[in-house]
């Protein structure tokens, strides 16, 4: 069976399908490519379909590459393997099979050759640079028959120009987006191209003489390609001069800085970054806080947010992943849940000051994710001055502590949360603290236990309602209000702010 040099992939596939349908075993066939003389069976046409054959898609992809290999036995090898594949379709996934291993190796050779062709073809301009469609041409010597399968790549890439790639075997011309393949074109005499000099200059200067690794270069850019690459001529000299250049750099005595340094630094000092937002003293201090090691790993300190005269202050644990990235508190999943429940109970979110007990995100990096870690006592203590400063500044009527960390930071007591939730405790400075769950707890139980989740949410909701109610300016409170009855021992509250 004779396979043509142009269009070999389709020709082989059609022929192989025909033979397989007629049940012709590999031993009865002699495959001929361009390299072999026509054989006795040459040109034999394939007769009509005898039986339907189905072939794994992965084999078609494999064959589509292997047909371009220079090995004269490639067609026969493919057919022999296809023959085996009829009875054992899973053979394609058996990477230990010697026949498949050979085909895969050939496929890899072709892919590599295609890849090197995409990389190492060097065009020269052959037409008028001012023309509407510029024209370029290259001479290239591929190892395998890779021009045809690679031509589409160049067509996709150089859509707005005409180009030709001449090789000793098949050449390809692309004019107006249409591809033409030609056999055995002579090597053309391509005109000089001024850009080549610039390219060689670039190649010489991007090379770092202090890191000579010639083997790493030649394994990826084998010498067989060098003769058609303009930059390759510079390589021997670059290698030869490298050790001396590296030595010279090391031995050169440090020079005195040029005179413009002062001027440049003055200029640098004048620049105000558009990232620096707030210049409030507290914010600046927290930003540069290094009282515990958390600042090293976090993106930024996350400050409290809300009106400075808020009656209700909500304190969470610490910023999470999103808070850390955005620099804003309560924007992550837990913050969103807080907002949702707040809406349900009519709590005006923008009238509340929200902040965290710890201002930097503590986490453990695990693969592509950051796993939240609760801050320990030393970190909470290190951050306490900032929280105290915020409380002093805002002086809220009530602080809502979300979760154990906030409760500990605000009251100094690490007693279990379960018994304290829903109750008001009093700080040494007299400010009342209502303790509730952290919304992330609600998120955690959500998937585990439906009933517990509903209970926790109801409790949380009740606590938020209670907190909101407590900070409302005292008017004539309607007695026996259905939503909220005042607890027995109401803590002394300071004069309500208006």
């Amino acid at each position, binding site marked *: 069976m004779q396979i043509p040099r142009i269009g070999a992939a389709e020709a082989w596939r059609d022929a192989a399908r025909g033979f397989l349908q007629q049940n012709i075993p590999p031993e009865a066939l002699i495959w001929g490519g361009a390299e072999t003389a026509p054989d006795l069976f040459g040109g034999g046409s394939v007769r009509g379909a005898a039986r339907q054959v189905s072939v794994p898609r992965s084999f078609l992809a494999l064959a589509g590459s292997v047909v371009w290999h220079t090995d004269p036995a490639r067609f026969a090898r493919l057919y022999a393997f296809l023959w085996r594949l009829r009875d054992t379709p899973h053979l394609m*996934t058996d*990477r*230990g099979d010697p026949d498949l*291993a050979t085909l895969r190796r050939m496929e890899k050779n072709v892919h590599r050759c295609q890849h090197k062709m995409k*990389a190492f073809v060097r*065009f020269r*301009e052959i037409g008028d640079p001012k023309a509407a469609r510029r024209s*370029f041409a*290259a001479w290239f010597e591929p190892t395998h028959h890779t021009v045809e399968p690679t031509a589409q*790549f160049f067509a*996709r*890439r*150089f859509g*707005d*120009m005409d180009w030709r790639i001449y090789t000793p075997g098949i050449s390809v011309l692309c004019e*107006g987006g249409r591809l033409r393949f030609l056999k055995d074109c002579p090597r053309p005499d391509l005109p000089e191209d001024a850009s*080549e*000099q*610039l390219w060689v*200059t*670039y*190649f*010489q*200067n*991007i*090379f*770092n*003489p*202090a890191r*000579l*690794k*010639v083997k*790493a*270069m030649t394994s*990826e850019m084998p010498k067989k390609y060098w003769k058609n690459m303009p930059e390759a001529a510079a*390589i021997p000299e*670059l*290698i030869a001069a*490298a050790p001396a250049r*590296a030595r010279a*750099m*090391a031995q*050169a005595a440090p020079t005195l*800085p*040029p005179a413009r340094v002062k001027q*440049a630094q003055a200029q*640098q000092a004048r*620049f105000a*970054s558009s*990232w620096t937002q707030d210049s409030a003293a507290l914010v600046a201090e927290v*930003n540069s806080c290094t009282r515990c090691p958390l600042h090293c790993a976090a993106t*930024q300190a996350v400050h409290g947010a809300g009106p400075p005269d808020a009656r209700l202050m909500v304190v969470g644990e610490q910023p999470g992943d999103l808070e*850390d*990235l*955005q620099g804003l508190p309560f924007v992550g999943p837990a913050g969103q849940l807080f907002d949702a429940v707040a809406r349900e109970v009519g709590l005006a979110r923008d009238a509340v000051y929200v902040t965290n007990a710890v201002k930097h995100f503590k986490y453990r*990096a*695990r693969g*592509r*994710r*950051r796993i939240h870690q609760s801050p320990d006592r030393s970190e909470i203590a290190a951050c306490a001055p900032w929280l105290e400063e915020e409380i002093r500044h805002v002086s809220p009527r009530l602080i809502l502590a979300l979760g154990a960390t906030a409760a500990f930071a605000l009251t100094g007591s690490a007693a279990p949360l379960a018994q304290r939730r829903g109750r008001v405790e009093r700080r040494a400075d007299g400010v009342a603290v209502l303790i509730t769950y952290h919304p992330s707890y609600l998120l955690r139980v959500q998937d585990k236990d439906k009933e517990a989740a509903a209970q926790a949410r109801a409790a949380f909701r009740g606590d938020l309602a209670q907190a909101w109610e407590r900070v409302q300016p005292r008017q004539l409170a309607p007695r026996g209000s259905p939503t909220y009855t005042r607890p027995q021992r109401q803590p002394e509250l300071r004069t309500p702010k208006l």
Partner: protein
Amino acid sequence: MVQYSTQQKLAILSDAAKYDASCASSGSTKRDSRAGKSLGSNEGSGICHAYAPDGRCISLLKILMTNFCIYDCTYCVNRVSSNVARARFSVDEVVKLTIDFYRRNYIEGLFLSSGVIRSPDATMSDMVQIARKLRKEENFRGYIHLKTIPDAAPELIAEAGLLADRLSINVELPTDAAVARHAPEKDPAQIRKAMADVRLRKQEARERSFTGKRPPRFAPAGQSTQMIVGADGSNDATILGQSTRLYSGYKLKRVYYSAFSPIPDSSAKLPLISPPLQREHRLYQADWLLRFYGFDLAEITSVTPDGNLDLEIDPKLAWALQHRGLFPLDVNRASREMLLRVPGFGTKTVGRILSTRRHRAVRYEDIARMGGSMKKARAFVTAGGWSPGALTDSADLRARFAPPPEQLSLL
């Protein structure tokens, strides 16, 4: 000031750009110019168009817009106090060079960095203008990598991300203290904020609006960064700790490790050494183990008492030699997670073992055909027809892999 030709400028500004390790052009959106109205394509995988004798791939035209800089970072060739030749490209020169090189198939696109001139905003805005001109006027669909100036205004970064395939911001050194010492004008917290900003913008651009319309992709090939290795005293545990934080926090595509390399006209504060290339290589290996092989940071860095990687053998082998109790593994039974821990097995080999053993038992010679490096792996696995016997626990196992001790020179 001297007037340089384009060629002279190119020499100066590519020489100044060589210390940026990244030259990747992969992982962006697929696009082409088949329609005939534009130039360029991107097909997912990157292409290295040439290799320099330093073994590094040349995929992009990697240049500085200018090497004038008002910063004074001791490790940098372009610091204000250095006396190297200075030059500046105009916007049009960079655009023309990029297009001319691209049409001749020299490059995949442009990697543009710059010294900071006038102000970070002014510099960034010139860089964005180059990218805009390439995309909008030249209809360039190739790859663009913009080095972001961390202090530049967020609007500029927003536009840069819509024009470029990749953005990068260098963290420069592994610790904040080292940055403060060697790059006094740079603010590590600001660098992290800028990276967080890029991550958030990228995330936002993925979310459909209520009409179901997708916003334009933001930096589709992601963001990357570079850390200089060997300029400060940080050990490998510190360096890798920093990279895991960067990967997890800002979803970086890559952290590049750049062995501190001698520069012309170096600073007196930072004596020159020959670049620790082997250390750089081991860091990349460890980086891969952390990202693709399920290793934990502590597992890799606890191998030596000083928190540095073993320079003589690769980090996976070093780990395996310390955990011989887990080996030999039966390749026909072991889990994917454990197979990934066998020295000499890569992710592809493991995938092939798993797919083959669904149908039949895997034999020793099969694994070699699947791409496993049996020289390393043989001591750690059993397979059909192979058992390492006492090899796994033999005292000289390490010596089989480590390079032979070198005779010290008398001179």
